[in-house]
């Protein structure tokens, strides 16, 4: 298959997936006992005719299919409704949070990928010796660590214990820089990001690392490596060559990592009170602020699905040998 038909097919698939997720979400939120008016007003606080009027104005008296179509139309036009809790449009609340989430996640995914590539290629190159065996075993430990526990431990040690970093949040309220260092733009944000980022990297690094290692092992047997070595290149340069050729599977994995990063992200945001979408989602589910919870979930799903598409495309561009299947 050629590139364009492939792109077309993937686009259709993406739309179908989005549609399915949106429908699922709509159905899920119908599982709530009662209807939004009882959550919004509290049961029995208003006379029945006022509730009926509200139901009518919200379109809740319409048949289900009508409600579903309305919901789809509202989504498409970017109308995500009103927060029950903040009494403001959902979008207004959500957008800044989305930004905060993406900042932390972008740094975490990038850092984990880079560390993974570096350590993985190093381990893969030392095939078979003791360092490699112990290294691969050690690397598996983070797989078993609950990310929120890593977060709490880091918080206990470096925030409560040593006091090196802030306990949580994203900014110091009314921050006044005092030293030269603190004058640097983004200093306050960076300081707040250190601990959550560290936790995220410990947690996410395993997969890119192991993939890089395996890929390195595969490339190490290739002819070009033998040839490069035969020409007398220093080992460091040979490894560099091999690394560049082994990097591709790690990049593909980044897409998968992003989709599973949201899970870790939600937990980290809660531990470190990071004002992001994950934390917002958890608190809005607890407060029964369903429009916000719904929208937050929707945004996360969109990011996952769209990123998967983008990285698929990127992969096709990066590796021309790929068959579009």
């Amino acid at each position: 298959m050629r590139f364009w038909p492939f792109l077309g097919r993937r686009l259709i698939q993406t739309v179908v997936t989005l549609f399915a997720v949106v429908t699922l979400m709509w159905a899920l939120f119908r599982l709530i006992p009662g209807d939004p008016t009882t959550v919004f007003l509290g049961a029995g606080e208003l006379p029945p005719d006022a509730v009926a009027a509200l139901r009518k104005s919200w379109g809740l008296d319409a048949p289900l299919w009508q409600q579903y179509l309305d919901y789809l139309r509202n989504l498409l036009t970017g109308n995500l409704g009103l927060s029950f809790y903040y009494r403001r449009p959902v979008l207004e609340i959500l957008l800044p949070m989305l930004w905060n989430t993406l900042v932390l996640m972008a740094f975490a995914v990038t850092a984990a990928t880079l560390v993974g590539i570096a350590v993985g290629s190093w381990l893969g190159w030392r095939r078979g010796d003791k360092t490699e065996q112990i290294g691969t075993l050690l690397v598996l430990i983070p797989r078993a660590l609950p990310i929120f526990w890593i977060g709490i431990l880091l918080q206990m040690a470096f925030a409560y214990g040593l006091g090196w970093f802030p306990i949580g949040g994203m900014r110091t309220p009314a921050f006044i820089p005092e030293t030269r260092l603190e004058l640097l733009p983004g200093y306050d944000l960076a300081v707040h990001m250190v601990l959550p980022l560290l936790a995220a990297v410990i947690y996410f690094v395993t997969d890119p690392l192991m993939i890089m290692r395996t890929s390195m092992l595969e490339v190490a047997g290739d002819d070009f490596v033998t040839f490069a070595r035969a020409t007398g290149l220093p080992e460091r340069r040979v490894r560099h060559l091999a690394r560049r050729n082994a990097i591709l599977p790690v990049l593909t994995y980044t897409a998968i990592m992003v989709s599973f990063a949201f899970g870790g992200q939600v937990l980290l945001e809660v531990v470190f009170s990071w004002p992001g979408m994950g934390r917002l989602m958890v608190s809005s589910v607890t407060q029964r602020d369903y429009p916000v919870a719904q929208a937050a979930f929707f945004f996360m799903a969109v990011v996952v699905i769209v990123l998967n598409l983008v990285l698929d495309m990127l992969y096709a561009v990066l590796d021309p040998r790929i068959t579009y299947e």
Partner: protein
Amino acid sequence: MSSVPIPVVEAPGVDHARWATTRIVLGSPSGMVGLALFVFFCVLAVAGERLAPYDPMAIHYLPSGKVAQVEAPSRAFWLGTTHYGRDVLSQVIVGSRVAFIVGIVSAFFIAFIGTNVGLVAGYYGRRVDDVLMRLTDIVFGIPFLPFAVVLVALLRPSIWNIILTISCLLWRTTARVIRSQVLSLRERPFVRAARVAGASDLRIMYVHLLPNVMPMSLLYVAFGVAWAVLAEASLSFLGFGDPRMVSWGQMLYAAYISGSIRHAWWSVVPPGLCITLFTASVFLIGREYERVVNPRLDRG
């Protein structure tokens, strides 16, 4: 039609491999450690209350009559007490039961659904494969933890709803892996022989193909246990755990919410360590077992 000799090909058996498997898993130090840890938690989960020094929900008082709030480890409370004056050690011991139930039951469903989807998709191919694999793609598009939070909160937090949520989504990886195995297996002579001999589709799938993908599904049972335990811990930590049961995740939630984490390491380290060790034990067993399933991975 000239008579075509029907090749007598036996489906590669797995029976004789069973002992070899046990030997390999037990033969490596990391496999041994994994198995020992697993058995240890098994005992904790089964014996539970009988091993625990106190009732995990009992509130203890100091001789002065005050609640034994966040007491450091002592002779009476080996791992100290929680913010509410409960014994950490007893909670950790009894908490293993939730991990066990959630881990085993969800892992069973993850492997069961995943294997069946993969088997049917891979065997029938074409339309069926297309539909099932697109479905799998859609499930892959759903971020797990956010979905779990929404579903569990809407259905009311309970251990069965947590299991339901985990089983609903995490079969996806198993399905993909099993399908790709079936795709290559179904072209093998023993499958063709069975087809020529007139075996029905169901028979080929469940009598001939299934035993061959079984080792791989078992591997995913092991991974499934680990994913499920971590998922339960995460949900509980976010406050969506089963309110009627003690779990490690809930202990961490309580420690975090009450602020005990500021100074009381004993309220944080034991439950977290248990989650880690339990998950690690399954991973270690799985890793050794993987060497049997996929000998190419074997590092000489």
